[in-house]
């Protein structure tokens, strides 16, 4: 009898304890699953954002996107090409191992391995050197102003664990190497990985030994990818999920109308724009001079787009029109550059006539139909508007799987592209990838032949300028030239829209990262 009483007491005590430490779970969903748990084996921003819950970088983005200390507490440049980082003491990995300089050196070395897919994310670093147990030097190819931006996306792995599991080198598809790091993750981050089932779900539990003071109150994260938009929304409405990010634009009104849910949205960093071929001739007009080389024609095409109509109708009022090539939070943005020419079909026609095309010309417009929000609808609208000013636009849309290879090869007359400047979140990314000629590592996404000597010069100078105000001024100037010469036609910043149940507070960030270590559950 006594024994039974004791057992009962024990059971009720256990029940009490478990209600005291009430489980606060966030169940959330996105359309894609994480590709792999290996931080250096992928370059997807979604996977990177998800892994940030498990891993910490040396420096991280804070609540206002500012760079702040994480695993490194301070840093300085000891030589123009050498940065010294002081590391945080007393940090433990999820397996109990202590975090030291060896882990940083092993992680950076692993990332710089030729087989690492994400190697380009730290392309300017040559090597990491241990100075003492809590000091590390990073050596760059030359003066490099964006090192901290790059490091914010580089997660630190545990050296001992990598040695034990034979994953000191990253997985490599070419050599057929796949490592334990693809399916397990040991980091120092705010949450520990509990389970990972591709396409079914990834679970995490809070890390009680996290080095930072938590600003969240959640104890568990259940991530469930749901590819179908309709199903994802249905699962939120039926109470099976707490958060969907992103939420499909066409369902926002319906979700917001339900008092049990809320919609949170803001413009993202992703800027949608149209590229114009600067080659000698267009595909649609073989044998003739490319009319797009004439600034007046480009001016006419820009003025001929009714941006407000696209914003209201196609984007349902959720996007933000823009006149420059970087989003306001990104270094390099300048309000003076962000002006619109104003829609006028008549002025556009007049400009075309001045340029010698009173009857317009033929133009191809190519767009993806599964990459950006409403990409296909935007292009169809633009094509109609251009046709109205006399430019007979032949619009073609296709899946991103076939679209981007063609775009890479420069096969289009005019085309749609989106750019978020991620991961560095810096205007330099636009200059170095889109506005410079393809050589010396520049112009990686500019096969259409746009070049400008002043931008070339400014970009090369900004690449090695360590003085931040000077560097920003150079980028602003280069982006002004790009605007004046209409290198691209900027359209809008596409929105980030999330939906959650009432009672869950998650701050939204323009880089579309879900950062649940700032989440509060009521």
């Amino acid at each position, binding site marked *: 009898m006594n024994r039974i009483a004791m057992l009962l007491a024990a059971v009720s005590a256990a029940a009490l304890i478990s209600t005291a430490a009430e489980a606060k779970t966030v169940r959330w969903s996105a359309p894609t699953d994480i590709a792999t748990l290996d931080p250096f084996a992928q*370059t997807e921003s979604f996977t990177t954002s998800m892994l940030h819950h498990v891993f910490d970088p040396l420096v991280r983005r804070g609540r206002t996107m500012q760079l702040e200390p994480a695993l490194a507490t301070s840093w300085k440049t000891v030589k123009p090409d050498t940065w010294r980082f002081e590391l945080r003491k007393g940090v433990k990995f999820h397996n109990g191992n202590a975090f030291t300089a060896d882990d940083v050196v092993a992680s950076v070395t692993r990332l710089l391995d030729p087989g690492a897919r994400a190697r*380009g994310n730290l392309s300017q670093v040559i090597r990491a050197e241990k100075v003492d147990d809590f000091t590390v030097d990073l050596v760059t190819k030359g003066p490099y102003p964006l090192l901290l931006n790059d490091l914010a996306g580089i997660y630190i792995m545990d050296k001992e664990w990598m040695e034990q599991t034979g994953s000191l080198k990253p997985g490599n598809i070419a050599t057929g190497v*796949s490592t334990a790091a693809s399916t397990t993750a040991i980091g120092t981050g705010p949450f520990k990985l509990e389970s990972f089932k591709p*396409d079914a779900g990834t679970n995490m539990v809070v890390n009680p030994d996290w080095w930072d003071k938590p600003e969240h109150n959640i104890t568990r994260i259940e991530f469930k990818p749901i590819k*179908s938009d309709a199903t994802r929304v249905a699962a939120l409405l039926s109470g099976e999920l707490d958060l969907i990010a992103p939420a499909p634009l066409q369902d926002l009104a319906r979700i917001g109308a339900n008092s049990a849910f809320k919609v949170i949205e803001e413009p993202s960093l992703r800027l949608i724009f149209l590229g114009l071929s600067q080659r000698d001739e267009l595909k649609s007009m073989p044998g003739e001079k490319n009319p797009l080389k004439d600034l007046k024609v480009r001016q006419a095409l820009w003025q001929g787009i009714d941006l407000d109509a696209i914003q209201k109708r196609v984007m349902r009022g959720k996007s933000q029109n823009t006149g420059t090539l970087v989003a306001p939070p990104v270094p390099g943005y300048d309000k003076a550059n962000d002006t619109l020419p104003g829609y006028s079909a008549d002025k556009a026609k007049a400009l075309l006539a001045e340029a010698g095309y009173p009857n317009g010309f033929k133009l191809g417009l190519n767009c993806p139909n599964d990459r950006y929000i409403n990409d296909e609808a935007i292009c169809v609208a633009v094509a109609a508007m251009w046709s109205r000013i006399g430019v007979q636009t032949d619009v073609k849309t296709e899946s991103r799987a076939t679209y981007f*290879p063609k775009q890479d090869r420069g096969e289009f007359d005019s085309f749609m592209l989106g750019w978020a400047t*991620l991961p560095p979140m810096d205007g330099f990314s636009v200059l170095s990838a889109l506005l410079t000629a393809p050589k010396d590592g*520049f112009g990686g996404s500019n096969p259409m032949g746009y070049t400008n000597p002043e931008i070339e010069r400014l970009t090369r100078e900004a690449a090695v300028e360590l003085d931040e105000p000077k560097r920003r001024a150079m980028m602003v100037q280069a982006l002004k030239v790009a605007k004046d010469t209409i290198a691209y036609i900027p359209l809008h910043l596409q929105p980030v829209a999330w939906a959650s149940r009432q009672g869950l507070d998650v701050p939204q960030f323009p880089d579309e990262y879900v950062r649940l270590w700032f989440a509060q559950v009521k």
Partner: protein
Amino acid sequence: MLRLLLARLGQAALVMLAVSAVSFGMFRFVGDPVAALSRENATIAEKAELREQLGLDRPVVVQFAGFLSRIVRGDFGISFRNQRPVATLIAERLPATLELVLVATLLSLALGIPLGVLCALKPDGVAARLVQAVSLIGISTPTFVTGIVLILTFAVTLGLLPSFGRGETVQIGPWSTGLLTLSGLKALTLPSITLALYQLTLIMRLVRSELIDVLSSDYIRFARARGLSARHIHFTLALRNALMPVITVTGLQIGSLIAFAIVTETVFQWPGMGLLFIQAVSFSDVPVMAAYLLFVGLLFVLINTAVDLLYALVDPRLRVRA
């Protein structure tokens, strides 16, 4: 019999070679994995290097030969996207798809046969007419519509069943099953109904027409004349004969159910092979796509070969002609 077996196997091998050529050839045109794999900021040199690493810069014939020799050795490569062996990925997903297809098939048989019998025996009854009318809807509604309607009804409005996923699963060796937990069974309900609907209608209509056919044959008339009970005639004498083609069709349909499961799996986020394939397509993950197509091809070839051989066993006339 041995000659027949060898001939059939030879044909099967030829078909598989064709399937592998098609699956390899098709993926040359569905997109460039390099674009899906590189960073947004990737330089041209980075992309070229990746292309070389993947062997995409070599001539097509060389790539195909490499592809074939690897398959023969059972090496399906490593997924571009996950960096995990494709064979492992498929093995992980196989249980989910097979359980779904199995339950859907059982469901369609358990409902299709009685309903078909009902329609054949009482063709003018109200119930039969209703079933016939509803079956038209079942056969003509696309799977994704059925799925979404079921989700809206049973998950959102009534809150009875989950709208996605597999629920809790139990791991038995390499096999993960959702049949042993309540949440697993609940999660299985809507997707299996969605997947079964087309097959159910097909079986019902087949049973109905076969049974009507059989019921007008001579031996049934003689049985009636002998004064046997209607129950005995209908269920023991007639239905048995009417079921022969049903069994064949069900067997053959299992292959297409696995292939059709792609849509159902996408709607319900069912973590099976169909979903794996869809994810692979959107990332141009060629090794996974190729392996999936080969798997489905193999499945059809195996089922058809088995059916052919069974026919030959059952019906001596077929042995000579083969």
